[in-house]
């Protein structure tokens, strides 16, 4: 049974400040409405791409989104920052309405957007459980029935009669998540809540989430950057990009599509990598003693080379972050400790060598940023990806990929 159906959902936002122009636009809209005409500002509006400067005052955060959700399905919604995920969730959770189109639903939707919404610092933990539960749509009787379970899950038994303002931030999050976890809506909307609490609590939270979606057969819409979580929880996924659906299908295919989409590896947008202090000319990843573009094998030393133009006499550090294809950070290295360049101005080239037999075969992502002083001057994520291919092995040895992102040259010895 289709429990939720989105038809041609679009959402338009006004850019810039709401100021004196607002009244005249409002009047224009109103006048058009009276004459039975369409809103004149619906025709304008640019596709939502953060990096390009807009030529219109209006922007489409979402454009013609269509999807259906079956009962009991766990649908993943994935996309880059600014792809429109949060806007979609806001519409789904009835915080705002779409500019055009409609969503029909056969069940109650409750959202777990950001836990702890509506906590009152002066009220005790127990009082806040009731208040928060009611805000999320539970009745008093429902909360009462689950009170002990909620308190137990949060692990805050000792503090339930203490005002929440005395709680540590971790305790607050635990309590809030506990309330939300015991919600029983027909459709649950979850946005990135897994990024809260300590490791132990995260494990508990993911476990609970799995229970909700798998055990209880609840319909769940799950938005996350964590591809591993999406893969383990979702049955189907849609990929959003610049406010439109670019892919809809099986989770694994969707994740692959998203990861591929994300890596616009060949063309780095250098305009984002320049400022009044430094201008990055090129960043290349290649195998030592080979040229750029040739495949890198596991037994090659990997070189990351950066050519740049330094304009000021600040000590500027270059920073790389290497990530695996699910965007887990593997390691980071900055140049500040290695090179002091406060006296250098002009064309410079730095390189860093990642020795062979460290990275396993597979695809890796590179974040690049510049550091001045103790903070990032700028940092761009996933500017580049590179693939490490398996080294040539002797015939007969294991040809598959061994597990893990690292493949070190280690040795077992008799002793």
């Amino acid at each position: 049974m289709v429990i939720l159906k989105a038809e041609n959902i679009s959402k338009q936002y006004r850019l810039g400040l709401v100021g004196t122009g607002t009244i005249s636009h409002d009047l224009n809209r109103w006048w058009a409405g009276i004459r039975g005409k369409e809103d004149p500002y619906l025709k304008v509006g640019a596709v939502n791409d953060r990096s390009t400067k807009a030529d219109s005052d209006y922007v489409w955060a979402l454009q013609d989104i269509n999807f259906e959700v079956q009962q009991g399905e766990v649908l993943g919604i994935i996309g880059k920052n600014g792809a429109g995920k949060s806007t979609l969730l806001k519409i789904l959770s009835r915080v705002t309405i779409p500019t055009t189109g409609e969503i029909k639903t056969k069940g109650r939707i409750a959202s777990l957007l950001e836990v702890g919404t509506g906590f009152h610092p002066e009220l005790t933990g127990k009082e806040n459980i009731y208040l928060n539960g009611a805000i999320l749509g539970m009745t008093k009787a429902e909360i009462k029935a689950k009170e002990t379970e909620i308190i137990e899950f949060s692990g805050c038994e000792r503090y339930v009669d203490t005002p929440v303002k005395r709680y540590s931030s971790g305790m607050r999050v635990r309590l809030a998540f506990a309330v939300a976890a015991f919600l029983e809506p027909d459709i649950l909307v979850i946005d990135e809540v897994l990024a809260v609490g300590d490791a132990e609590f995260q494990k508990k939270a993911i476990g609970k989430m799995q229970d909700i979606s798998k055990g209880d057969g609840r319909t769940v819409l799950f938005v996350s950057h964590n591809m591993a979580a999406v893969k383990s929880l979702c049955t189907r996924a849609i990929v959003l990009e610049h406010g439109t659906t670019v892919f809809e299908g099986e989770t694994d295919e969707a994740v692959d599509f998203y990861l591929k989409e994300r890596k616009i590896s060949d063309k780095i947008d250098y305009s984002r990598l320049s400022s009044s202090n430094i201008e990055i000319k090129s960043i290349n990843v290649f195998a030592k003693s080979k040229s750029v573009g040739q495949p890198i094998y596991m037994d090659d030393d990997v070189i990351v080379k950066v050519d740049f133009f330094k304009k000021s006499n600040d000590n500027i550090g270059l920073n790389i972050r290497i990530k695996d294809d699910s965007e887990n950070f593997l390691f980071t290295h900055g140049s500040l400790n290695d090179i002091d360049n406060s006296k250098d101005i002009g064309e410079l080239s730095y390189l860093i060598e990642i020795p062979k037999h460290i990275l396993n075969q597979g695809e890796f992502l590179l974040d690049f940023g510049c550091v001045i002083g103790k903070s990032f001057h700028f940092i761009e994520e996933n500017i580049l990806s590179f693939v490490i291919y398996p080294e040539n092995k002797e015939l007969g040895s294991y040809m598959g990929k061994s597990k893990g992102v690292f493949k070190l040259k280690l040795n077992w010895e008799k002793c």
Partner: protein
Amino acid sequence: MSKKDDDIWLYTISSKRKLIDFNFKEIWRYRDLLILFVKRDVVTVYKQTVLGPLWYLIQPLFTALTFTLIFNKVANIETGTVPPFLFNLAGVTIWNYFSTCLSSTSDTFKSNAAIFGKVYFPRIIVPLSIILSNLMKFGIQLLIFIAFCIYYYLNGAEINIKSSILFFPFIVLLMGLLGLGLGMIISSLVTKYRDLKFLVSFGIQLLMYVSAVMYPLALMREKLPAIAWVVEYNPLAYVIETARYMLLGTGDFSWFGILYTVIVTLVILMLGIVIFNRTEKTFIDTV
């Protein structure tokens, strides 16, 4: 999808707006939230204060005392047979209910933006809870007023409680609804035009002077006939005048005034609900 299937949708999130979209069933479903909000507002206001709920009493008492000194002792406003302090206390108590209802509901969207931006519940729950929690505060203040009435009565003051006092709850309701209606209109407009925020705080002050709080309506007609119409067209003046008539037996009672007030209140309330309904759906984009 067949026609019949379409009918069973529980609700639709759509760009189309109806003029009045007032879902009583849903508000009823959230009644526990309403009660909890009222409880929160009442309990937390004076947390970590020494005097606690006594503050509910201090404010009207001192205002009434100041009014008595300035308007009655210095400016010699006549309050008839009723002791001036009692006259002022009645006015201030009722006025306070209206003004706190108005000023706190008019802030609904802005002060709840964080919560409204995360979860859905019928937004009208918030202004309703403000009206109710202020009603409790008003009840406490009314008790202290009654205590002073008894005190003055025992000391020989002339207080004629009319039988129409049975309709006093109706007057309070009228006051609350008027505050709610105006507050909802203003709160909706404030989301876009912040100018109104400044207007409200000093507008309420000005409004008090034309609402017959510290003088009888008749006195205005007598002393300033040229601009008495400002007060006479102000429904609040009738509410306060009528309330004083019921509680203390002073001033005029006019059926015309009551009818006029009821009509104005209903119009403002309806307008408030319509505007509030339109705003609650998209305000998060503009706030």
